[in-house]
């Protein structure tokens, strides 16, 4: 009986360690990533980067390539058409 209890205790302890070192580590990493992603600093950094990129875009002579501009223009036109004639 008592050897069974000892074996159970040791097995549970080893199980707990393995559990924490496998599932626990992954869980903690995910929680950390989530926490970093949703942190105030990260949101601020995204905003800052966005502002920077917009400024760069404004300062460029040509931000969108001619062929892309044509494509986007055609796409916007199409959207406008569809919006104006929903029952077409």
């Amino acid at each position, binding site marked *: *009986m008592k050897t069974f209890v*000892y074996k159970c205790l040791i097995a549970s302890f080893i199980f*707990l360690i393995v559990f*924490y070192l496998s599932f626990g*580590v992954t869980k*903690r990493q995910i929680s950390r990533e989530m926490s970093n992603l949703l942190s105030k600093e990260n949101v601020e950094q995204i905003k800052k980067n966005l502002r920077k990129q917009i400024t760069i875009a404004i300062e460029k002579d040509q931000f969108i390539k001619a062929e892309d501009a044509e494509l986007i223009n055609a796409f916007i036109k199409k959207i406008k058409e569809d919006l104006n004639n929903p029952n077409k």
Partner: protein
Amino acid sequence: MTKISNKILNYSHYIFFLLLLITGLFLYKDFGYNIDETFQRKSGLYWLKYVSDFFNFDEFSNLVQQKLNTADDFTNPWSNKYGVIFDVPAAYLEIILKINNPLKIYEFRHLLNFLYFYLGVIFLYKLLINRFNNKFYSLFGCILFILTPRIFGDSFQNNKDIIFITFFIISIFYLFKTVEKNSIKNFIFLSLFSAIATSTRLFGLVLPISIIFISFLAVLSNKKEIKNLKFLLIYFSFYFLFLIIHWPLLWENAFTNLHEYLNNLKIYGPPIVFFNGDFFVPDLVPYYYLVLWIFISTPVLNLILFTGGLYLTIIKFFNKLDFIKSDRNNYDFWKNENEKKDFFIILIFIILIFLGTFFNIKHYNSWRFFYFLNFFIIYFAIIFLNFYLKDLKINKKIKLILTSFGTLLLILNIYKIFLYHPYQSLYFNSLVTKKMKNNFEVDYTGLSAIHFLKDLSMDLKGTNDQIKVSVKSWYPIWRVHSLLNKKDREKIKIVFNNSEADILYSNRIYDVNILKNDKYEYENKFYKHKQFIIDDIIIYEIFKRKIE
């Protein structure tokens, strides 16, 4: 000659403790002020007022109230859920001895802090004598303990963790006493000190939990142990009784307040912690946080001896698993009292390391909540020393080389204590590279602030200039500003708005991730003027306003 050396050894502990006391009395004024000290002082005065009111000591209560009005602490959310074993006597003595000067108050608290620590070292000596029955080992254990720089530095200003170590060691001493003799007296003392340890730090709970577990194993091994369960009942009855008697928090709504105390650890702490070059939320630090901190901030000699002792102990008890028999006449994990003591220690140590590593405990301020693990480090170190000197059979020359190497490491340790003075609390060992040292939080309790202000006042000596000081880190410098004398306080003005400041102090502790957040950039209006470095560690930095 042998007679003389025996005589010296007989009196060596008296000499050691006298020297330690003298050292403490000489040095206690040197250390900086811990960020928590105002908080703890207020806690002491608050509970002293409560006790005075409870016993209707009206006149004394008025005196305490006057003091309490001066102990404002507005930076942190206030909580009364802290142990009282240091704070209330400190508050009582502050009033009785009529200490009113703020600087003197904190110097006195540092002295008292050291005296508690001193008591802890005495009990460590008694505990090691109890286990090893050898004066040299016990003395060597105490020397290793006090020469652990972070413990030595904190023994003057950390009035929570050091107090906990003291009561933890005393509890373990009485635990050993109960192993030797199951007497009611020993169990009452054990329950008293483990109750005090529990109120000082939540980790004190590990003592009653381990006692239950060991009793369970003892009964499982040997059926005769069942008759000793009455002592367990005595222990727990007195444990709860002493917990309530010595801790006014439990005098009313004991269960609610105890529950809140258990949750207290979750409330406090910084929003972010700098660890290994990155910022983490305190309850999401990597699992190796505690182990890495122990590895980088414990002296190399202690680490080597501890690792050897831990290995020997684990192997010894692991081997016992092979010899477990189904009959229940002998104990399975120990043959004698010393083995039972070692089993207690290894079990408590494993539980603590497991809790500290895997449980969602908030980790910050290095590993100061776990500084009491230094007791285990010393205990296992002495187990290894015992093995090394008595049982290890190796070539005499090799032994001489190893002993000389150990002595060198001890000398290096003493040198580091001098080198870091009075910043021993910020110590990193010689295994850590310069770059790595600055990838961790260093002066998290702002010990350097008072030295920065004193240096600044020296610079201003002989002038009538007034200088406006603010901070460039997460630190309430105004707490230590009140410790300056009136003249210096007038010359150094603390401003809360950095746009008014001439000079900024930084202890390099932040509440935001400075790798992503520019909160402390202050629009680049300041430049780094000076930094204070010890052993390649940047302790604090000074910034000056750029001339526009």
